[in-house]
């Protein structure tokens, strides 16, 4: 079926036929998992629209911005400081992918035992499926897990990748390294965009992105109510969209949605009855359209009230200090804020354990489901520690390891349901 955006996609050199297939799957999946929900918020219409146009109007906006001289920077990790890109007048988009569609292509250049997230973004590139990747003027990789680190070497044969070095520990010398990497990134972004970052522009960028984090924090506070006013799937989608949409629009729209949530909470209206089993997710990021596990959980009679993940609280918990006056002060504040990220690629990473336990207690959940992508070693290793920490706090945990395929859905349902029965 021809699409009004075909000409644009063709210009971006997408494989139109395969891409149409992707959109069809995405649309169907979205229909099944999202549109079938009862009592959704009015504010979700914005997200439905953004998602339906994620490869359409949003890409058109990016193209228009590019035509007016703006630059687009693509990233794969919440470690890449968006403040820098915004301060230089650029646009940052997340490139993590959650669909299996390019897997066959990816496995031609990657070992089979690579995590689905990596296979997906490499597959999207090779199969010419992602208009975001093709819109980027700069693609930024980072030295986090070994899988990604080596995958960027392969990816860079198809698109140039700038790689940031992320420290592995949190000592003073690591902070120094991170500071110098931030400065190197700043020069690169200034060169790509042709704009110098000033104290004023950085101040605005910090404020803008803090506001985006604040609105997501507000969302998390509101959804913690019982009865839950919004499904975990919808909340996850909001977090996912925050990586694609214009930050100003996003913040405004989610602010409105939060007002609606506020009213629901006040009137005690929920999408599920009061007392519905409350669970929390923890672990690897879930990129669009990886909604498999949330769907399985919420169709088994539980509600997800929080995500301890990079598409979740790891991305929104900490703000950049806004007290800095000089450019250098502000850069230091950025360094400090990003050094607080508790990714499993760090060693040791005990903050994450504390954060998970505190979050589970604050949210008053009955249990935590730890989500690891198959072959993701950092999170698989930490799953054992997380379980120990949670069990110690009297909170049961279920460890799930899966990928983007649908073949284990029935098995997952049984395990998740049994876990819910167990926590009753």
């Amino acid at each position, binding site marked *: 079926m021809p699409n009004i955006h075909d000409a644009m996609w063709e210009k971006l050199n997408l494989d139109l036929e395969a891409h149409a297939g992707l959109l069809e799957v995405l649309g169907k999946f979205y229909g099944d998992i999202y549109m079938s929900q009862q009592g959704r918020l009015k504010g979700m219409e914005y997200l439905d629209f953004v998602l339906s146009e994620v490869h359409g109007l949003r890409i058109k906006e990016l193209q228009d911005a590019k035509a007016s001289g703006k630059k687009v920077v693509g990233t794969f990790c919440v470690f890449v400081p968006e403040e820098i890109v915004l301060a230089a007048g650029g646009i940052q988009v997340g490139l993590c992918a959650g669909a299996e569609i390019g897997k066959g292509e990816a496995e031609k250049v990657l070992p089979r035992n690579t995590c689905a997230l990596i296979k997906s973004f490499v597959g999207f590139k090779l199969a010419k499926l992602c208009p975001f990747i093709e819109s980027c003027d700069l693609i930024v990789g980072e030295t986090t897990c070994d899988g990604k680190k080596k995958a960027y070497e392969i990816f860079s044969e198809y698109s140039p990748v700038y790689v940031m070095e992320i420290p592995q520990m949190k000592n003073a010398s690591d902070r120094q390294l991170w500071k110098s990497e931030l400065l190197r990134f700043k020069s690169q972004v200034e060169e790509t965009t042709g704009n110098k970052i000033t104290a004023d522009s950085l101040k605005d960028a910090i404020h803008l992105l803090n506001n985006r984090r604040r609105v997501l924090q507000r969302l998390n506070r509101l959804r913690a109510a019982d009865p839950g006013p919004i499904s975990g799937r919808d909340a996850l989608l909001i977090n996912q969209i925050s990586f694609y949409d214009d930050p100003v629009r996003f913040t405004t729209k989610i602010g409105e949605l939060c007002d609606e949530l506020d009213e629901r909470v006040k009137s005690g209206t929920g999408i599920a009855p009061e007392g519905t089993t409350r669970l929390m997710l923890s672990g690897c990021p879930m990129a669009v359209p990886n909604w498999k596990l949330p769907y399985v959980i919420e169709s088994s009679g539980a509600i997800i009230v929080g995500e301890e993940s990079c598409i979740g609280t790891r991305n929104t918990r900490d703000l950049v200090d806004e007290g800095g006056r000089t450019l250098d002060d502000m850069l230091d504040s950025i360094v400090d804020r990003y050094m607080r990220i508790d990714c499993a690629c760090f060693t040791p990473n005990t903050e994450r354990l504390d954060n998970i336990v505190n979050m589970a207690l604050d949210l008053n959940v009955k249990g935590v489901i730890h989500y690891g992508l198959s072959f993701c070693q950092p999170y698989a290793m930490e799953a054992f520690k997380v379980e120990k920490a949670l069990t110690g706090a009297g909170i049961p945990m279920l460890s799930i390891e899966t990928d983007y395929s649908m073949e284990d859905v029935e*098995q997952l349902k049984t*395990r998740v349901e049994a876990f819910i*029965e*167990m926590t009753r």
Partner: protein
Amino acid sequence: MKSRSKDQTVAGIDIGSRSIELVVLNADGILRQLKTPTTFDPLGQCRRLMGELEGGRVIATGYGRKLFAESFGQMDVSTITEIQAYALGARFLHPEARTVLDIGGQDTKVISLSETGKVFKFEMNDRCAAGTGKFLEFMATALQVPLESFGEYALRSDRRIAISSMCTVFAESEATSLMARGERPENIAMGLHMAIVQRTIAMLRRVGVSAPVVFAGGVAHNPCVVRLLEEQLGQPVIVPGNPDMVGALGAAICGKNGF
């Protein structure tokens, strides 16, 4: 809860990928228990099994529980998972049970129970059939031994050889090459049983093994698996009289007690 008259029945049905079991309870205890293969028409099989059973509550469990609940909407049907069903069934038969092992047609489950009988940890095998009843069935066919006597057959071995492969396909080729080298088929059968038990033990250790252990599911009929498990665990395992009915029984118990 609604009050139930004395002759009111509660049924538990366990719809697995290989077989379907039905247990009917009334106030005096087990009224009826039946078993049938799943075939390609599970709903038809359920219908036949349910027979003249009218009214009363039905609790469905197993792989086909949702399908059953959707198709028998006119009845009072609810569902529970196999984990919960096996825990309840085992605990009903052996109130002191602390660990439940179930090896069924296509999956293996290990459940750890608290002193009061609550599930507090469980494990299930991952996607493939390695280490399940299907594995034994496949291997019995390969060695041309009837499945029902495969365990006794293996117990006639005179030597223990290790089969390292747990993948059904590789294990078969390993068995074939052992045959070609003139190994006694009884010894090969023993090796295959050892492989399945080894895998089960690893799962048991992950949830922690507290005594007593109840062994349920179709494979519990196999004396060689029971013997090897006891050897490895260093303690007796309890096999209920009708090990394949434990899931259906647990479902029925759940219906009786409410959840």
